[in-house]
């Protein structure tokens, strides 16, 4: 029974013991993506991530708009972390156009970026909680996000997509009375974070479920090119804010969080501990910030970049985000390439899930700190 198949096609051989599950794109346990999982009983034989359902062509769109018009649409891939995904764009455009940023604006950018990092991590933590079936851990971070959303609303006027960071500084100055309000809310939030520890991270069932599952060794983490919290949970001390400090990060007092275990529990805990460091950075920056001064260097109308290329990267909630911008003497960039942490962390998912139990899939999947929309860009 040999049927003539077109070249390049083959009939898939199916083992009767193996069941193929399509987790996503319409599944409460997947994002805007699909995981093709083959299971043998309760064990995962292979996992094939299939991203690309929310590709929007941000990089191509950036080639048809000038440097200022690019701001609002480049933050769309991660609207929860919009300041951090705009940060490397602003840095690289400033380097390309040779703009000097005022000192006060640098501090305000750091504060906005750290507030936004907390917003993102809280959202991520809420989804992590509901993935583990812990509904309280879904509701608490989702509610506490409001603290930071309100602060950023006061700064920028928008609750989610702020477009607050622009090449040359920030869009507008802080509102009056911002420092006291920010300090009060951050201090309250630090108290709340300690309650998360009691209800979620010290929970014996959570520990029993995530400790020792999906172990990513230090060498594998480096070899597979992971970044951000996944890399640091595997014992590699790499934080762009420490290693290649941008703006005023070298003046500020904080540590990078590193854990050695490399399992799902460590990957869930590193972002949580980073929120404490973010609060420290915010408080320190509020103290050291110049109390007055300009916050934005005015650009020329429709500025032209030289015949040049530039690459800058920063540390976002999901790892390093880098912008590679090529310019050819025109108001629009010739090429904008965004390197995102989500996509680089997704690569190690098939390695981690092979041989795992199906019940570990949500913890491993969401522990990778992967945001489907950002990975597709």
């Amino acid at each position, binding site marked *: 029974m040999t049927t003539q198949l077109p070249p390049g096609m083959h009939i898939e051989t199916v083992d009767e013991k193996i*069941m193929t*599950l399509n987790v996503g794109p319409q*599944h*409460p*346990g997947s994002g805007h993506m699909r995981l093709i999982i083959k299971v043998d009983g*309760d064990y995962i034989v292979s996992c094939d991530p299939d991203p690309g359902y929310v590709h929007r062509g941000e990089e191509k769109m950036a080639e048809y708009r000038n440097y200022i018009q690019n701001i609002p649409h480049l933050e769309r891939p991660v609207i929860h972390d919009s300041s951090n995904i705009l940060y490397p764009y602003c840095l690289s455009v400033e380097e390309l156009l040779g703009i000097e940023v005022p000192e006060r604006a640098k501090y305000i950018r750091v504060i906005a970026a750290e507030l936004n990092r907390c917003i993102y991590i809280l959202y991520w933590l809420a989804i992590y*909680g*509901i*993935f*583990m*079936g*812990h*509904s*309280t*851990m*879904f*509701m*608490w971070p989702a*509610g506490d996000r409001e603290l930071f959303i309100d602060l950023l609303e006061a700064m920028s006027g928008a609750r989610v997509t702020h477009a607050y960071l622009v090449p040359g500084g920030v869009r507008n100055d802080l509102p009056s009375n911002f420092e006291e309000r920010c300090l009060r809310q951050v201090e309250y939030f630090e108290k709340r974070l300690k309650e998360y520890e009691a*209800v*979620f991270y010290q*929970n014996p*069932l*959570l520990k*029993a*479920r995530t400790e020792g599952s999906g172990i990513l060794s230090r060498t594998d983490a480096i070899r597979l090119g992971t970044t951000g919290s996944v890399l640091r949970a595997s014992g590699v001390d790499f934080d762009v804010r420490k290693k290649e400090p941008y703006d005023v990060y070298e003046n500020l007092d904080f540590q990078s969080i590193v854990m050695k275990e490399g399992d799902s529990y460590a990957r869930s805990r590193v972002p949580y501990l980073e929120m404490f460091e973010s609060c420290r950075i915010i408080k320190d920056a509020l103290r050291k910030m110049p109390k007055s001064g300009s916050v934005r260097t005015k650009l020329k109308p429709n500025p032209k970049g030289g015949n040049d290329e530039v690459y800058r990267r920063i540390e976002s909630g999901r790892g390093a985000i880098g912008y590679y911008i090529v310019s050819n003497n025109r108001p629009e960039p010739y090429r904008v390439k965004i390197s995102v942490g989500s996509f680089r962390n997704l690569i190690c998912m098939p390695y981690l899930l092979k041989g795992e*139990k*199906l*019940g*570990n*899939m*949500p913890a491993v999947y969401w522990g990778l700190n992967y945001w489907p929309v950002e990975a597709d860009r």
Partner: protein
Amino acid sequence: MSTIAPQFRLSRFIASLFDLIFWVLLIFSLVGLPIVFIVLFYIKLPVINGQFMTPYLALTWMADPSRTLPIVKSFMHTTIFRVMAFPGFGFAALLAAATIFVERKFLAKIQLRVGPLYCGKIEGILQLMGDGFKLMSKEIIIPAKADKPIFWVGPLLFVGTAGAFVSLIPVAPGWVVANPNVGLLAVFAVIGFFPIIAVLTAWAANSKWTFIGGLRALHQMVAFEIPLILSLLGVVILSGSLNLSNIVESQEHFWWITFLPIGAIVFFITILAELERVPFDLPEAESEIVAGWLTEFSGMMYGLIQLGTYLKLYAFAGLFTVLFLGGWNGPMVWPPFPQDIITHGITIGPVTAKFPGLPLFDQDMLNGTLWFVIKTVGVILLILLPRGVFPRVRIDMILHTGWYKLIGLAFVNIFIALGLLYAGVLGPGGLLH
């Protein structure tokens, strides 16, 4: 706030009132009266003033109010009342509905939310009714390749089995729907049906998610049925009876939880697993297998499953109360019925009205029901609490817990009970009996 609608016309309003009265009368005469006659036919009617009541004579309560209460009282001692109203389906469904509301508010308070708020004037108390109407009005979708008869009958079987379970729980002295001498064995038999229903409906839906969920439910329930049965043997040994009413009567002086705390803890954990509640809600783990074996149910079929789940929750909490917390036993707190109303009647101005047939319920029954409800509600709250605190466990962890740890603890419990029995402290003829 409230304003009369701008198009309001009094004549139309009165016309609509007449319309309403017409329909009420029509429906009452076509449906209500036949039902009354059918019901009266089955009731053992009382003898009042030496006159035997026929169904037609019983209808004279409309003309003679003094006959109302005796007829109502005799109706309350019929089987149909016990099955439909108290302590059967109506009572259990009322408690189940209250449980759903309390669960939502209680969980919302833990999670710093407000919970249902808008439906109904007070704290969203009508939310459940709204949800019920929504489920009734939704379309029932059946997968094209499902095994339709089994798929259809699954929710009905589930509610029926849960109802059978409810009927075995004694609420007050003498108030139980079914009181077999092997009541506890009957409970085990009824519990054994639930995994079969789960796996049948899961397989009939012909979907991968329901299939995995059904198999998980099967594994989990079978793994936890054995410690469940073993943990209750201690109570049987000490009370010397399988009859649930007798077990309650044996706890008149002390509750079995004081002597068998290990058995109570094991039984409580197995309750959580049998009810598929957090942290053992693997058969419905939404981040892995959508909604498990309930994935393909929609509309009122899902509503029936939910009703069955909460009836089951009430029945298990009631069983815990009956076996470990002394059931209806408790200090007499219900005030006795005033004697002079029975002997002299109520005097309002010049008129003195006597009500034959009072009191409707005796004091023991009301007091017993009060204590039973208080204890059961306490147990229900304990069952609800883990949902706010725990994440979900994994299937290998749950099987390990069920097969190794809980069975071992259940045996320890049995040895404690046997020790107490042979030492002559407890049990039939014991020192404390």
